[in-house]
């Protein structure tokens, strides 16, 4: 990239506004490294953009809007509660055995991962008690499949066999069992850093890095010089769409993204 191209294609403005193509972006970032003086122009344009934005009202959420969300969630909880109660009643009508005293399951969904060390996060109430919907999360859909680390065994752990990118769990009433098994080549110490994270399909949960659950893998050396990773995750989930990520706990780099549908 050269200066005439930058001026002709309005590169600085498009860079500030995030409108460059990947190729233009890489070329312009490299140009910036070799010609640091151009940063002054970039910062000047950023100052204009930020000042004009500063004139717009702040994105602050008003108290009544927050309260509105809370009221909405409360109503939704009540409506779903009533619906579930009715469904449970219908289910009992089909049961010919004597009516047993109704047992309410007040326990939070449990996580059983034999052999794994598993961290649990405070469950966001809305993601468990309110049935999640099946809307795809565009951020996570874009990441589905192996991550961008495809280096050789000496450099980056590379997949030999990935876990399934799509998993199904048919019965939401019982525990869902998800098996995350894969084979990689690479430095075992690096692979031991891998952890899995399970997200709901809510974009806010993902952007705030608020997984429903996360945990580590058990690893084993295979005779074919590969390293097997394994995590068996059992948990109770409401019907909906969920995503799991396998990432390097140290760098946060994502190695694999898959999805799980609970029907």
């Amino acid at each position, binding site marked *: 990239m050269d200066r005439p191209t930058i001026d002709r294609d309005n590169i600085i403005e498009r860079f500030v506004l995030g409108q460059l193509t990947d190729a233009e972006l*890489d070329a312009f970032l*490299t140009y910036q490294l070799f010609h640091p003086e151009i*940063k*002054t122009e970039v910062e000047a344009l950023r*100052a204009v953009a*930020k*000042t004009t934005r500063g004139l717009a009202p702040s994105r602050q959420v008003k108290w009544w809007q927050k309260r509105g969300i809370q009221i909405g969630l409360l109503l939704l909880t009540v409506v779903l509660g009533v619906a579930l109660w009715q469904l449970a009643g219908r289910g009992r009508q089909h049961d010919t055995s004597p009516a047993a005293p109704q047992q309410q399951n007040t326990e939070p969904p449990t996580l059983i991962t034999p052999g794994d060390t598993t961290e649990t996060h405070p469950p966001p109430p809305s993601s468990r008690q309110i049935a999640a919907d099946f809307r795809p999360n565009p951020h996570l859909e874009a990441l589905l499949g192996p991550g961008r680390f495809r*280096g050789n065994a000496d450099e980056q752990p590379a997949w030999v066999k990935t876990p399934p990118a799509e998993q199904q769990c048919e019965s939401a009433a019982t525990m869902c069992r998800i098996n995350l098994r894969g084979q990689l080549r690479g430095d075992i110490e690096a692979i031991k850093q891998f952890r899995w994270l399970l997200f709901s399909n809510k974009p806010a949960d993902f952007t705030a*890095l608020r997984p429903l659950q996360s945990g580590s893998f058990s690893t084993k050396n295979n005779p074919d010089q590969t390293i097997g990773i394994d995590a068996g995750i059992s948990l109770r989930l409401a019907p909906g769409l969920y995503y799991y990520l396998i990432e390097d706990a140290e*760098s946060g780099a994502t190695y694999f993204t898959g999805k799980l549908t609970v029907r």
Partner: protein
Amino acid sequence: MNEGIQSASQTSDFSLLIARLRRRDEKAWTELVGSLRQVTLPWLRKRIGRLPAYAVTTEQEFAMEIFSESLSRFYTLFEKGRFEQARELQSLMFKIAELTLKEGFARLKKEALIYRPDDPAGFQTVQQELSDWTNDDELARQRARDIRQKLLELNENDRDLLCRFYAGEKLADLAREMEVSEENIRKRKQRAFDRLKQLIGMAQLFLIGNLWTAQLSTVTI
């Protein structure tokens, strides 16, 4: 890492790649920048999440700002460092990005004070909270006030167009709304920006840029 960097690793030609980078080979650097962007930007976006309400930047722009700053620092540190594997380059980038992001978050509040219209009561409170409010920050704030003043001197159409464009509205949408062609709206926006530059004086505008650049360059890893 992308194909170029990867193939260099696979053929044990990493030292050759490093040599090309040290020679400031533009193609090698563009490849490296691309591969670092591919791994660092998604990670930054995840870490940034949703910015606070007072931020004058969008999440996407903030991520790019942090990445761009991190890359400059990476470039400086690369000259001094020794690297045996591609993984080390990536690891250095992540460390720098982590630190730059931390500083970036701290700067968000300052930027809100600099770029939002004066709020003397709120300003006093927040300024007291910010122990590292410098003279340069104060100067930047005055310059931003000048830009704001000059923006208000533009005619309403120009001001509205610039504000909406920089707030992220697409030219195509603006053109549709105003029932003119996209090319027409692009020219109108450019003329409005040229008028603003004239009013401010480009030298003064660049000074604002210089202030930030100077502040960034004083940070060491």
